[in-house]
């Protein structure tokens, strides 16, 4: 009914009737758009990737936290045991600096770990529908989109070297150089290094320096604790006097326990520390060394494992991003200006854009211009996609999901070979297959937003009704179509 009224409006008719259908949506001056009755939502609430957000979008992690709690637990446990059992002894026998150094290292490790886990690694937002359509138009000259085309690539010249850019079917764009799509997080990440289950997040352009500082300081911490524990045990075992001294000291600490048991307790905890540190030190030192090499040659784990620049192809391919100078490479990776987060987690969704589109739709019947109608349909689609329905409404959706699986092999070698990611591989296999994971991601993303479902569906219905359905009450066809979409989400 609403649309019929619009169609009957004579272009020369006075403007006032057109404004009555939407009195409280379309502010005439359009200066303040925040007069929506419902609370504006933030963009993180409709983020299509597989991420978790806390503190109203300030903190983000991958949805699979991996073994991040274990990492935290191990660090706290080992450091705690160190401060409780080793420090008092060593302060008496050696120097007071030991707990100070240990404390500084511990705080450093903790802060950098949290920063690595909670920072946006450099996620690229997905392409808007207009952008995706523009790219499709440039590729598909024939206009044939009935079957899934082969993986698309585009070649660019970087520092006189030919680099192939791949098309990401999930994000609907050509991935910039050094960008890779993480299958676990379902996001394209810039300068993708790897997905680290120990920190529960991807490591990419924005948090690589935090990750590197974390593993370097952690290797110092574990080496330090290892050294202190070894010294502690050595000093205790050095002479009978040491043991006796310990025995005499013990009652002071644990007045109600038998002496022998107290000594065993101390030794037990020290032994636990020793075991954890022994196994950690080698792996973490190894990882630090590996990443130091990567930083010095301006490589990512992904590139190193795939052998992109090692000349596997037989030609003289060298890393085009390297500055050919170790110092400059290190500085450009670790000391470059911090790039901004591109996903604007805490920005507000343009909720009143629906009203604006309706305002524009009023013009539609006055112009017999197909392209405008198509554009407006696209805009409506864009709106709906911004309300977190993008994977479902995009026409290439069925192609998108299998292609995510195809893009997975890009990342799986990285996941398999990195020593820090052995666990992720096991977890990846234990989990529902990442290929199916991709296809269920919109459902998983959306079911987490129960309270916003109605709001977004209401928005979507408004735009559909105003310019697609012939009758005002929620018409059967488009609404039914939409109803189907929502039904699948439930």
């Amino acid at each position: 009914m609403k649309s019929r009224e619009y169609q009957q409006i004579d272009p020369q008719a006075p403007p006032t009737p057109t404004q009555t259908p939407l009195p409280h949506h379309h502010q005439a001056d359009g200066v303040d758009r925040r007069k929506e009755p419902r609370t504006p939502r933030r963009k993180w609430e409709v983020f299509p990737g597989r991420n978790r957000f806390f503190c109203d979008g300030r903190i983000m992690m991958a949805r699979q936290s991996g073994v991040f709690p274990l990492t935290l637990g191990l660090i706290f446990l080992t450091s705690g045991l160190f401060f409780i059992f080793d420090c008092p002894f060593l302060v008496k026998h050696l120097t007071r600096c030991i707990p100070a150094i240990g404390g500084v290292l511990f705080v450093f490790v903790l802060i950098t770990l949290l920063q690595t886990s909670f920072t946006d690694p450099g996620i690229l937002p997905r392409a808007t529908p207009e952008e995706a359509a523009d790219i499709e138009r440039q590729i598909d000259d024939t206009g044939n989109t009935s079957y899934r085309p082969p993986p698309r690539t585009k070649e660019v010249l970087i520092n006189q070297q030919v680099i192939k850019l791949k098309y990401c079917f999930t994000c609907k764009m050509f991935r910039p150089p050094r960008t890779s799509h993480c299958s676990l997080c379902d996001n394209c990440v810039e300068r993708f290094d790897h997905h680290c289950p120990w920190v529960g997040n991807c490591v990419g352009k924005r948090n690589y320096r935090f990750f590197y500082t974390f593993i370097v300081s952690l290797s110092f911490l574990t080496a330090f604790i290892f050294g202190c524990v070894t010294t502690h045990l050595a000093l205790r075992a050095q002479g009978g006097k040491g043991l006796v001294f310990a025995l005499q000291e013990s009652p002071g600490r644990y007045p109600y326990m038998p002496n022998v048991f107290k000594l065993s307790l101390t030794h037990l905890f020290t032994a636990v520390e020793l075991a954890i540190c022994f196994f950690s030190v080698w792996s973490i030192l190894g990882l630090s060394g590996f990443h130091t090499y990567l930083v010095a040659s301006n490589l990512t784990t992904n590139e190193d494992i795939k052998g992109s620049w090692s000349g596997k192809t037989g030609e003289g391919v060298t890393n085009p991003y390297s500055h050919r100078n170790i110092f400059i490479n290190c500085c450009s990776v670790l000391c470059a200006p911090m790039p901004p987060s591109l996903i604007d987690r805490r920005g507000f969704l343009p909720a009143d854009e629906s009203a604006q589109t309706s305002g524009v739709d009023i013009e539609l019947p006055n112009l017999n211009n197909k392209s405008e109608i198509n554009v407006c349909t696209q805009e409506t689609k864009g709106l709906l996609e911004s309300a977190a329905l993008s994977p479902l409404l995009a026409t290439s959706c069925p192609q998108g999901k299998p292609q995510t699986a195809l893009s997975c092999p890009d990342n799986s070698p990285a996941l398999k070979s990195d020593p820090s990611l052995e666990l992720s591989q096991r977890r990846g296999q234990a989990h529902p297959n990442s290929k199916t994971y991709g296809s269920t991601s919109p459902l998983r993303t959306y079911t987490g937003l129960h309270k916003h479902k109605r709001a977004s569906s209401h928005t979507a219905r408004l735009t559909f009704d105003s310019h697609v359905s012939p009758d005002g009450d929620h018409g059967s066809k488009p609404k039914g179509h939409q109803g189907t979409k929502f039904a699948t989400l439930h």
Partner: protein
Amino acid sequence: MATEFHNLQELRHSASLANKVFIQRDYSEGTTCRFQTKFPSELESRIERTLFEDTVKTLNNFYAEAEKIGGQSYLEGCLACVTAYLIFLCMETRYEKVLKKIGKYIQEQNEKIYAPRGLLITDPIERGMRVIEISIYEDRGSSGSSSGSSSVSGSTAR
């Protein structure tokens, strides 16, 4: 300024979107942020080539300034590392400062040059720094939608 902003809003509300042009990234110098200065054919009738190229070149210069690795960025990086990167929570980074400058520049360009021609540039940061999106609006009337005489509801601008 208020009048011009009003005109931009009028552009959005009263004109109808005809097309969008996307200026892609130029990766010839690596992963630093640069946009292609190639003049798109859709804009040929709407704006002069030199104006467009000036805008894109200025934007490229801004981004190069933001990402420049030099003495100052080394100091900032080292200081940040020493403080376990906590200063990023307190300070506005250099990149963010330059992004604000870019936002102001784009708004100024829109008001002075692009809106009178029925065009609108979207800040690349809103598109993930992948493209510069230029929206082309249909001319609604003789003098376009930037004239203050066109009434608020654009349907009369016929």
